[in-house]
C-alpha cells in the first residue's frame, strides 16, 4: 500500500460536478470531500442524483462539468477498468457462467495476477466474507445473502481505493438486510477501507454511516454525521426525509440571548433553538420530532408562556409495538403527533383524554423559511 494512505486524507474529492441528461440536471454543482477510511452514504429519494454521482465516481457516467479526484488524482479521463474503484451493483451482477471462486478471481485475472497469488487472495477474500469452502458452488446454488457476500468478496479482493455500493441491500428481506448492514460495517472497519454507499433508506444510512450526504433534485442538502443530520436538519427537506416530525410554521415572537426563540403558531407558543438569529415577525419553521415530545395524562398545570408545553386532547392513538403514537389537538394551534415509549403510563392514555404535551426548547429546531 502507498505510504500516503493515511487517515485524515481526502479519498474522493467531488468538485463542482454537474451532470445533465438533455435539459434535466441530474447533478447540479455538487462539491464535497470523502475522507479516507470513511463510511460515507449518499441518501435521497429516487431520482435525486445519488446513483448518477456514484456511477460518475466509478466511471460509468461522465459529468458534464466539474472534476472528480481520487487520492488527489483526477480520474475523469480514466475508463472504469482503469480506476482504483470497485462497485457492488444493485442487483449484484455476478457472472452466472462462473462459480463463486471464478467470480471472485475475475478482477485479479484481468490484471494478469499470477495464479498462486490469485488463489491465495481469493481464499482470503472468501474467508473475509465468511464463505470458506463455497468456491466451487455455482451462482445459482447459493442463497441471496451468500450472493451478497460473493459480490463483496469480488470487489474487495482487488483492494480498491474506494468501494462504491449501489443500494446492494435493496433486494433483501428485512432480517437479512439488518444482518448484512452489520456485516458491511464490520468489513469496512476491519479493512479501514473507504466505502461510498448509496441508499434511499434513511435507517440504513443512519445505522451504518460515518457521514451522510442528503441529496435532493441533484443538489446536496446537508452533509454531516447521522446525529448532526437528525438533530440539526438545515432545511425542510432534510427534516422531512429523515425521521418523523411535526413541521409547524409560525412567526418569531421573541428572540432570546441564549439562542432560543419563541414562535407563535396560530396562538400556540413554541420555544426552540434557532440556527440563525431571526428578526421578530419573521417566518420560521419549527421541527418537532415525534419522539422529542412528551405526553402525560391529566395535565392541569400548564406552564403558559414558556413555549415548552400545551394542553391537548388525544384524538387518535396507535399501538406500534416499541412506541405508542398519539395525535393530539391543543386548545389553540395545530395538531401535534407524539411518539411515546411503550410504558404502562403511556398505555393508560386513551383517545379523548386530556393530556399535557411538553418538550425541551433545545430539542426543537427553528429553521428560517
Amino acid at each position, binding site marked *: 500500500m502507498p505510504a500516503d494512505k493515511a487517515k485524515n486524507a481526502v479519498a474522493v474529492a467531488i468538485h463542482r460536478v454537474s451532470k445533465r441528461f438533455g435539459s434535466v440536471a441530474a447533478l447540479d454543482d455538487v462539491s464535497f470531500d470523502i475522507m479516507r477510511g470513511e463510511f460515507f452514504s449518499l441518501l435521497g429519494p429516487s431520482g435525486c442524483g445519488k446513483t448518477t454521482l456514484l456511477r460518475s465516481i466509478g466511471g*460509468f457516467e461522465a459529468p458534464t462539468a466539474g472534476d472528480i479526484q481520487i487520492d488527489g488524482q483526477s480520474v475523469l479521463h480514466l475508463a472504469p*477498468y482503469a480506476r482504483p474503484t470497485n462497485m457492488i451493483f444493485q442487483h449484484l*451482477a*455476478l457472472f452466472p457462467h462462473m462459480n463463486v471462486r471464478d467470480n471472485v478471481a*475475475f*478482477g485479479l485475472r*484481468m490484471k494478469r495476477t499470477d495464479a498462486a497469488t490469485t488463489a491465495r487472495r481469493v481464499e482470503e477474500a472468501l474467508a473475509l466474507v465468511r464463505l470458506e469452502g463455497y468456491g466451487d458452488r455455482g*451462482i445459482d446454488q447459493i442463497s441471496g445473502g451468500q*450472493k451478497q457476500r460473493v459480490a463483496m468478496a469480488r470487489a474487495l479482493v482487488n483492494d480498491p481505493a474506494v468501494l462504491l455500493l449501489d443500494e446492494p441491500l435493496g433486494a433483501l428481506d428485512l432480517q437479512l438486510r439488518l444482518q448484512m448492514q452489520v456485516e458491511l460495517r464490520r468489513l469496512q472497519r476491519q479493512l479501514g477501507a473507504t466505502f461510498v454507499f448509496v441508499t434511499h433508506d434513511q435507517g440504513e444510512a443512519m445505522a451504518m454511516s460515518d457521514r451522510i450526504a442528503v441529496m435532493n433534485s441533484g443538489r446536496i442538502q446537508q452533509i454531516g454525521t447521522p446525529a448532526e443530520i437528525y438533530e440539526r436538519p438545515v432545511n425542510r427537506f432534510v427534516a422531512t426525509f429523515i425521521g418523523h416530525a411535526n413541521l409547524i410554521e409560525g412567526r418569531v415572537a421573541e428572540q432570546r440571548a441564549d439562542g432560543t426563540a419563541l414562535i407563535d403558531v396560530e396562538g400556540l407558543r413554541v420555544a426552540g433553538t434557532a440556527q440563525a438569529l431571526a428578526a421578530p415577525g419573521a417566518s420560521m419553521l419549527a421541527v418537532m420530532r415525534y419522539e422529542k415530545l412528551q405526553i402525560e395524562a391529566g395535565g392541569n398545570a400548564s406552564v403558559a408562556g414558556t413555549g415548552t408545553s400545551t394542553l391537548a386532547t388525544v384524538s387518535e392513538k396507535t399501538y406500534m409495538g416499541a412506541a405508542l403514537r398519539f395525535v393530539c389537538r391543543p386548545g389553540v394551534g395545530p395538531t401535534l403527533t407524539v411518539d411515546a415509549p411503550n410504558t404502562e403510563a403511556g398505555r393508560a392514555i386513551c383517545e379523548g383524554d386530556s393530556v399535557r404535551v411538553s418538550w425541551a426548547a433545545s430539542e426543537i429546531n427553528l429553521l428560517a423559511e
Partner: protein
Amino acid sequence: MTSPASGKTPKPFPGVRPIGRPFWLLLPGVAWLLVFGLAPILFMGAVSFWRSSIFGTTPDFQFGNYARMIEEPLYVELLVKTLRIAALTTILSLIFSYPLAWFLASRKGAWKAVCVVAVFVPFWISYVVRTFVWLPILGRNGLINQTLMGLGLISSPVEWFLYNEGTVYLGLVYVYTLFMTLPIYLALEKIDPKLIEAATDLGARPWQTFRHVVLPLSWPGVLSGSIMVFLLAVSAYVTPRLLGGTSGIMFGNMIANQFLSNNNWAFGSALSMTLVAVVALFLLVVGRWVGIREVFTGGKG
C-alpha cells in the same frame, strides 16, 4: 434473491414423477413423429436396399447400392467435399453473423426495431430468388463486370465470378446466415448489461470483457446457429445447382440426379441414407461436446 440466474439451463422435467403420468397425452406428438419423421426414413432406408433398372425399382434386399457408393471414389470424395463446404459455410456465417448480431443487440429503442427489420426483410423473399439474383450481379454481362469494364479496369468480362466453389460459399452464406444471426442475437440480447459493466469495473478491458463474459454467455446461440447453418448447408441443393456449375456440385445435387434424371431411386436412397447417417453422427458428437461444455462452465447440478 430468488430470481433465477440468467444463462441457467433448466433440468429436463424437474420434479416430474416417473410413474402415473398420463402417457396418452404424448400420442399426438408421437404420431406426428412416426408419420412425418420416422416413416419416410424407414421407407427410404428400405428402398436403399432395392434394385433399380430401366424397367423401374423393384423390392429386394442387397447391398449393391452401398457397395457402388464405396467402390466409386467420386461419391466419397463428393461427400467429403460437401462436409467441407458445409463446415466452411458455417465458419464464414459465424464470422459474418457475430458482428451483425452484436450490432443489432447493441442498438437502442426505435433504432433497434428499424435495424432488425432492415436485416430481416430481405429474408422474406424466396431463397430461390435470393440465390438467382447473383446471376445478374456476377454473370458475364452482370453488374460487376459491366461496372469494371465501364471504369476501364478490365477489357473483357471476368468469367470466374460464377460457377465454382467460391460462388457456392457466397450463395450459401448469404442465404443461410440469418439462421446464425438470429440465435446469436437472441443470446446477446439476454445478457444483462450490468454484467458487462461489472466486468469493466473489475478491470476488464473491452476485449477481455468480450472474451470472458460476452462470448461465454452467447455461446449457446453460437452453437445452435452453427448446427442450423451446417445442417442447411450440408443438404444444399438449389444454391450449388444455380451458382456452382460443374465444379461447385454438392452431395444434394448428386442425390437429386438419381431421382430426377437417372431414375435410380434405390441408389438415390442409399446416398440419402448415408448423408442422414453422417449428419446424425455429427449431431451426436456436437451434442456430447456441448454437454461437456455446460458442465465445464458451471451449469452442473
